[in-house]
């Protein structure tokens, strides 16, 4: 299956919601601590060929890129979360010298996560290490709202895929908060883990289910209607869980990647929850995604500067 080598350390990978063969990879030099960043746009070839994955284009930045999100409203627009605190909009239909088409520098520290609203499609949110979350729309040059409640870095933000106004944020203050853009404060505070929470994602089929990944090595699934205890605790990673992702095709399937260099697939409703473990990475696995358009197509990237795209159940390294 396709493998792509990036010059920098991978941080995030996202499938395009428009084209099943396209994906974006955010990378940062020197593990994101210092140096530049590069945003890759990759194309998978539909038929077997010597180069199963090819680079459509790439964009350089002066700082590392920690996350990327495709626009849900048009197929050539994507937004990157940059370590200098700015969000940069890239339009693939513009000539390269006009990209980024817009820079939105408002965060005072690194932007660690960005997510495009999949239902209303005109807005996106960004979570930053300055403890705030900002809501942006494409028709404004400044943020629409700033959500400041977390006591520590916000590591992850995710829109509810079934509710246009609700999103969740995971923070280093060991809480997950659920927000409504119409409310002045958060509507729910879930003290989900004993340690920092690095990632959160909504279940695509049940708008009340939320998955979180934490430094305590577990993935937990929560029901926001009764968030005292988690629905499921998925243990099996050897180190902190860096990212969780709920499957767009199966209600009970969750994907996670971890600092133990593995990518795991879970079914949180069955007793033996771990249904797949991929150890193709030789360094921290930090970015994963599941294709919305092709069932079972997975992608991962990590600090070993590799991008893997494979079908669930197959070996990512097999050519």
């Amino acid at each position, binding site marked *: 299956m396709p493998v792509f080598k990036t010059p920098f350390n991978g941080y995030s990978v996202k499938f395009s919601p*428009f084209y099943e063969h396209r994906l974006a990879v955010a990378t940062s*030099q*020197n593990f994101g601590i*210092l140096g*530049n960043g590069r945003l890759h746009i990759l194309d998978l070839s539909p038929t077997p060929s010597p180069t199963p994955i090819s680079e459509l284009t790439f964009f*350089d*930045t*002066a700082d590392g890129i920690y996350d990327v999100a495709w626009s*849900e*409203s*048009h*197929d*050539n627009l994507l937004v990157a979360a940059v370590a200098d605190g*700015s969000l*940069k*909009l890239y339009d*693939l*239909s*513009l*000539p390269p010298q*006009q990209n*980024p*088409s*817009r*820079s939105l520098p408002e965060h005072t520290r690194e932007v660690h996560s960005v997510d495009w*609203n999949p*239902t*209303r499609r*005109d*807005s996106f949110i960004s979570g930053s290490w300055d403890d705030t979350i900002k*809501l942006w*729309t*494409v*028709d*404004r*040059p*400044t943020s*629409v*709202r700033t959500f400041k409640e977390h006591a520590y870095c916000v590591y992850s933000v995710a829109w*509810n895929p*079934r509710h*246009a*106004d609700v999103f969740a944020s995971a923070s280093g203050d060991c809480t997950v908060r659920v927000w*409504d*853009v*119409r*409310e002045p404060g958060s*509507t*729910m505070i879930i003290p989900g883990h004993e340690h920092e929470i690095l990632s959160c994602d909504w279940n*695509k*089929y*049940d*708008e*009340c289910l939320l998955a979180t990944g934490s430094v305590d090595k577990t993935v937990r699934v929560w*029901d*926001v*209607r009764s968030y005292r205890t988690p629905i499921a605790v998925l243990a099996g990673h050897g180190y902190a869980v860096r990212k969780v992702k709920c499957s767009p*095709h199966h*209600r009970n399937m969750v994907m996670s990647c971890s600092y133990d260099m593995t990518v795991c697939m879970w079914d949180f409703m069955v007793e033996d929850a771990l249904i797949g473990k991929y150890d193709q990475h030789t360094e921290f696995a930090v970015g994963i995604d599941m294709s*919305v358009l092709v069932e079972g197509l997975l992608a991962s990237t990590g600090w070993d500067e590799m991008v893997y795209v494979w079908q669930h159940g197959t070996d990512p390294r097999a050519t």
Partner: protein
Amino acid sequence: MATTTQGASGPPPKPWERSGSSSGPAPFRPPSAGTTSDVVEASGTAKPGEIVSTSDRNNTVNTNAVGRPLPTRPWENNIGNSSYGGYNSGMTYNSGYGSGMYNSIGGGYGGMSGGMYGSSMYRGGIGGGIGGGYGGGLYGSGMYGGGGMYNSGLGGSMGGYGTGMGMGMGGPFGPQDPNNPPPSPPGFWISFLRVMEGVVNFFGRISLLVDQNTQAVHFFMSALLQLFDRGGMLYGELARFVFRILGLRRKSNKIGPAGPNGLPLPGPDMQNDQRLLEGPKSAPAGAWDNVWGNDARR
């Protein structure tokens, strides 16, 4: 570039949109209709100053094949397909991102300079979006971060300034100019050396401070010792004075303390042992037994 036809109708439907929610009622308020900006404004939760005029938003929201409003895409050029070729998309940001009245007013002139200085137009559009109108505030707070020379006095004749901005964009807008991405970001060694410079500076400052502190402690200690020294001398002088007033004289004690029988004790000072040095002494009966005094027979 790549095909761009699909974008106008939104992405393909998500798999989960075909199935209903399988669980009970959610604890959320039902979603509001309208754009995110409208919803947030209607809720009144946005910070003051974050709201732009919405009076003419309809100008920028096109209806599409789906029949529902979608945000304007950069290639949806409501200025018209002019003959500027590849720069078209550059200037469409004017309409796409600049909401509000600016669009209807500035559209024509935007097209003009947009063709020539593609990026300048984009900035104009942004300014329009912020100012919400045309006039003094137009080029103000939005694009230039609220500061600098473009902030004031630019609103007078928009067209002319639009062009001027386009020409000058290489310089004064600084690194935040979205249309001037870093052409060649500094390489690893440059960044590394910058960091090393910082590290060296840091340790330089630290060592300087440590040095100064050491010096200060040294001065403090020597001053303290000097104080004791002089204090002792003062005390001795005063004491001598007081004793003299009282008529007391300290007994001069030039000779060492007497030993038993009035003999001076032999000591380290050799003047008491002169007889040893003057010559051999006739050995008394007990040989050298009485050399050190305290002869047992005496």
